[in-house]
């Protein structure tokens, strides 16, 4: 009959042993708590930042998927247009996998007010068909949204550069499809603010029918922007669209902006590496505590061995002490991190760094993203590392010779 040491007794012994040196245990648990809370917080912030970067990018493109004339992306000229009137394409676009889609014309133009002129990108779309998605990531602060055949919506920054105002007319000048310079005068009917100052300064919106008529494009367009319901379905939808129109270029957002996915992956890897480093550093402290605890308790361990406890059970006893310490630290850390994230659920104002963040494609308000998976991952890493680091002390303890340990001074 072998010695029995139920889990409950083991945990209770472990807790009591930890309480013997309250300060030491508190310092280690505190260190764990700080590290865990900080790491969870950091992950949530990075997730928020990366998620925001992705959202902003998709909104700014706009669309999860874009369809173009195959030459258009290299040479965004008015002549690389295509006709969207195709039964097969329409049926895919109207399938339930797709949340929204819009046809657009995009051309570069000069915009002139009475006082100044700038280069801009004209984005023309069908306001009746599209809803708000088509505008990308903008907020109307003055005037009204587009209607069929109405005027032009400009960014606040551009409005200031042009030294003009809502209701005033501006002149757009570009090359029409026939190669001749085309001019049109339009009233400013709306003013928007965008997260990205660069787009606020350079993008203007007009109605599709107006642009098609002005530029001689009939029913031709330059781009279809598509929003999907589920990011997982992206590739499937892409191939369906491609089948419908083999003559056009159908691309996902991560193909359109390749550096972004590298960046997302890199920062993921970076965070993981840093977390592991922090916890490896921490585990030195944990091992130290455990080694000292065993050192102080040599006699006691000798006694337990003499009474008939198996070496393996001694190891388990030592490891359960580490486990209890880990669980305490993790519990507190999780609570603290969750509370901080709860308090910050509406986002953090980073307008101080707005320009720099814009340079990285992030908006000035950062909302941390709380993912249960991350917390579980973080906790598991800590428990695994902690238990792994307790293996050596546990092994050493179990190999003590009972009488040597018992009579050691």
């Amino acid at each position, binding site marked *: 009959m072998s010695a*029995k040491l139920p889990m409950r*007794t083991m945990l209770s012994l472990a807790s*009591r042993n930890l309480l013997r040196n309250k300060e030491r245990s508190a310092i280690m648990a505190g260190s764990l708590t700080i590290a865990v809370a900080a790491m969870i917080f950091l992950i949530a912030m990075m997730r928020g930042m990366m998620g925001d970067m992705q959202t902003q990018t998709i909104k700014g493109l706009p669309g999860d998927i874009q369809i173009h004339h195959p030459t258009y992306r290299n040479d965004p000229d008015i002549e690389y247009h295509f006709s969207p009137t195709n039964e097969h394409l329409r049926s895919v676009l109207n399938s339930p996998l797709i949340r929204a889609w819009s046809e657009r014309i995009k051309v570069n133009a000069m915009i002139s007010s009475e006082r100044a002129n700038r280069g801009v990108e004209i984005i023309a779309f069908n306001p009746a068909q599209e809803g708000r998605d088509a505008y990308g990531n903008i907020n109307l602060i003055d005037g009204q949204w587009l209607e069929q055949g109405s005027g032009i919506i400009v960014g606040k920054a551009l409005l200031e550069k042009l030294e003009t105002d809502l209701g005033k007319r501006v002149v757009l000048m570009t090359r029409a499809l026939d190669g001749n310079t085309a001019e049109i005068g339009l009233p400013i009917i709306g003013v928007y603010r965008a997260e990205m100052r660069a787009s606020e300064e350079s993008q203007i919106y007009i109605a599709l029918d107006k642009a098609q008529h002005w530029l001689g494009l009939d029913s031709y367009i330059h781009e279809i922007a598509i929003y999907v319901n589920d990011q997982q379905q992206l590739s499937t939808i892409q191939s369906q669209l491609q089948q419908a129109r083999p003559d056009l270029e159908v691309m996902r957002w991560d193909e359109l902006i390749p550096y972004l996915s590298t960046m997302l992956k890199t920062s993921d890897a970076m965070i993981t590496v840093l977390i592991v480093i922090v916890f490896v550093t921490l585990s030195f402290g944990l091992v130290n505590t455990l080694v000292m605890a065993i050192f102080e308790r040599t006699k006691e361990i000798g*006694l337990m061995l*003499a009474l*008939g*406890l198996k070496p393996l059970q001694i190891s388990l006893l030592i490891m359960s002490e580490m486990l209890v310490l880990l669980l305490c630290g993790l519990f507190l850390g999780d609570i603290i991190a969750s509370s901080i994230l709860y308090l910050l659920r509406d986002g953090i104002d980073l307008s101080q760094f707005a320009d720099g963040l814009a340079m990285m494609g992030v908006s000035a308000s950062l909302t941390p993203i709380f993912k249960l998976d991350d917390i579980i991952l973080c906790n598991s890493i800590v428990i695994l590392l902690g238990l792994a680091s307790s293996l050596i002390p546990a092994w050493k303890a179990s190999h003590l010779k*009972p009488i040597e340990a018992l009579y050691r001074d």
Partner: protein
Amino acid sequence: MTKDSSLYAVQCRNLCRHYQQGEQTIMGLDNVNIDIQDGEFICLTGPSGSGKTTLLNHLGGLDTPNSGELSIAGQSLSNLTPSELSDLRLNNIGFVFQSYNLIPVLSAIENIEFILMMQGVGKQRRGQQALAMLNEVGLQGLEHRRPAELSGGQQQRVAVARAIVSQPALVLADEPTANLDSVTAEQLLALFQNLNKKLNTTFVIASHDPRVQNYATRLIRMQDGKIIEDSASE
């Protein structure tokens, strides 16, 4: 495993154990031969440093001799794995160590229950047994004190209670009366004798307390690791 007493005869043949202390070799055990029958009540005596503790450690399978043979119930201890030795100690041998007997984080009663728990005794039964044992050694009311809150003598009595609670076939006690007043010492020895008579438990008690010698059925005297007198061989 039964506790059929005839199975627990102890045999020592030419047991030698020496310790290297710098240049010097100290003989802890020097060619020791003893046969212990079941139900004997042995007093192991001799001056300090004569090898009593060392012998007890060997009898309990805690120490291994440099040469010689030690067998319990006809089985040589040198053939047992550490794990088998652990089981042997847990199930058949009760220990009272000279010092440091109790687990500091456990209360008096828990220290006793700990052994029963390891043996797989159910929670309720082990509580009752432990409490009864504590009463028997005269510690009623102190069951929830931790070792640090007990006097040396009280700690000693908890250790004794723990050693005999599971009714082992062999009890090895190292100076069990050293910290006790004479009344308590007598009580404890009476308890040992009672167990010895009732359950045929074998006792080997290392002590130079003359009271122990009064209770003993056999006296073994040691000096410099040698047995210099054994009342059984006279």
